[in-house]
């Protein structure tokens, strides 16, 4: 009993609890990554510039993370790689959110055979190993970064559609929906202006998860050679290129690997936190 009262008391005392601190740290980390991606290049060297006279080397004073087999500075490539790491997943997320929200809302609000058709399709897509489908399709279509982005955008739609449909289904029995229906609001208006604002917390939180999934999948595709074009600074591709240099310059693999894991973790944590905050606000309303 004592423990319980202590916990609630400590929760009330502080203005920020542990999850807020974690979220703040995640936000700070992601802000740095965004600054690297969007701001003026802070890379000390040209990320694409090969320097064969240096060649492969471990970290030194002039090259903090060493160089790869072509003498390219790892630190510069990691910094410039932040752009590919954020831009592609951002577009994937946007595409999957637009179509996923639309499908999920239509399925949830209309119900009936529309719902059945959409959900059977979603079940089928979720039962597929997505990354393998992406590999085969990209291989057949001829590859490239933007093809990978487009294919992943489509593959992430069912994840989103399922979550949004679930959230929409929770709204349907509520009085405001019935009231709107009684007033003769057409279904598309009801969906777009009445139900959607009420599931927006889920939409926002889910877009974080979709972003993390896109980041991990896209870098995975780059790692396998079906994403970023050869030579481009991209974390997944860097890991693949420098995998054989693990003995000579481990930093060339460890740095992009750690950044990838940290970024994905931070996005996921921030998504959880946003969801919690938004649903708390929703409950108190």
């Amino acid at each position: 009993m004592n423990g319980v009262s202590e916990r609630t008391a400590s929760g009330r005392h502080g203005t920020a609890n542990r999850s807020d601190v974690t979220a703040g740290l995640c936000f700070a980390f992601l802000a740095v990554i965004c600054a690297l991606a969007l701001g003026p290049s802070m890379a000390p060297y040209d990320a694409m510039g090969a320097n064969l006279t240096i060649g492969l080397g471990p970290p030194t004073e002039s090259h903090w993370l060493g160089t790869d087999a072509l003498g390219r500075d790892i630190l510069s490539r990691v910094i410039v790689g932040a752009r590919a790491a954020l831009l592609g997943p951002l577009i994937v997320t946007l595409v999957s959110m637009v179509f996923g929200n639309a499908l999920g809302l239509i399925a949830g609000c209309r119900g009936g055979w529309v719902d059945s058709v959409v959900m059977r399709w979603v079940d089928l897509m979720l039962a597929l190993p997505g990354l393998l489908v992406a590999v085969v399709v990209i291989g057949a279509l001829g590859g490239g970064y933007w093809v990978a982005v487009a294919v992943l955008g489509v593959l992430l739609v069912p994840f989103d559609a399922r979550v949004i449909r679930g959230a929409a289904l929770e709204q349907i029995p509520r009085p405001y929906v019935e009231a709107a229906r009684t007033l003769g609001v057409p279904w598309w208006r009801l969906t777009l202006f009445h139900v959607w604002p009420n599931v927006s917390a889920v939409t926002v939180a889910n877009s974080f998860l979709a972003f993390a999934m896109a980041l991990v999948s896209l870098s995975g595709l780059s790692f396998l050679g079906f994403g970023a074009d050869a030579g481009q600074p991209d974390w997944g591709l860097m890991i693949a290129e420098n995998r054989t240099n693990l003995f000579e310059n481990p930093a060339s693999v460890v740095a992009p690997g750690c950044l990838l894991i940290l970024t994905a973790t931070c996005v996921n944590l921030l998504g959880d936190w946003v969801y919690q905050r938004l649903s708390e606000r929703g409950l108190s309303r």
Partner: protein
Amino acid sequence: MSVRSTAFLLFKRLVAACLLLAVISLAVFSLVYLSPGSAEQILAGGKGSIPPEQLQRLRAEHHLDEPLLTQYWIWVKDAVTLDFGQSIQTALPVTDELGARLRVSLFLGGYAFVLTTVAGVLLGLFAALRRNSILDRAIVASTLVGLSAPAFATALLLLYAFAILVPVFPAFGQGTDFLDTLWHLTLPALALATSSTAFLVKHTRTAMLGVLDQDHVVFARARGLSITTVLFRYVGRNALIPITTISALTFIQFVVGAVLVEVAFSLQGIGSLLVQAVAAKDVPMVQGVVMLVAVIVIAANLVADLFSMAVDPRVRLGGRAA
């Protein structure tokens, strides 16, 4: 639920599985037509111009003058007898290559499955029993990282940590006999198991916390039954439910993860075969690998559903697993 309705359900699922295989195979068969470039160029390996007599031979060999559905039917008739044609890269039968590569992939998958199940349940159990302790917090925190980390990044970090910094495991190779294979595949299996273990820990912990607070468990403890008895008799069955309901999902994670991990560790398995075949536009090989993976995924889904029906009466009695 009677035996008859179970049999009916099984029959329905098998029919659905066959339909699904037909759809997938048609989609994969159409790959040749989807790919940019002419069909005979792709089947010849896409290398420059082809001499006319070879072109003639290729067209005849792959029945390219027949209509698409007839071609598909010819392919299906061979595929049913496990004949997927010859690899463009090696000119060896696709089926032989698949057979040769299957061993290491199955070993890797099985090893990772054992690791996931054992570590996932034990860690989830510990975390739930020591709720809010440092151990619990540490487990939950590492779960968050494990869930987010892509398998290939984990693989390379493990490789660096345990094959180079502290060289306890080999950096490459896939072993000869059983123990040697076990030793060689430990790091790949760990990398493959990381995210699914994190997933399982999360679900087991939540399920356990729900069960441990229930009256019948509290009452069993109050009657003086030991904690181990309670765990085995009352809680264990409930811990099985998350394992079975997410095992199909875990399996798909494995199939995807295996590709990344096999490439990361240079293992000659089915996953790395798919990547090599797609990169080389080796169409018969891609078709063979995709069909094999499709059969495995469908079978695993079916087994997981049957298993969850056996364990969870709620699934048996009505509706679907939550």
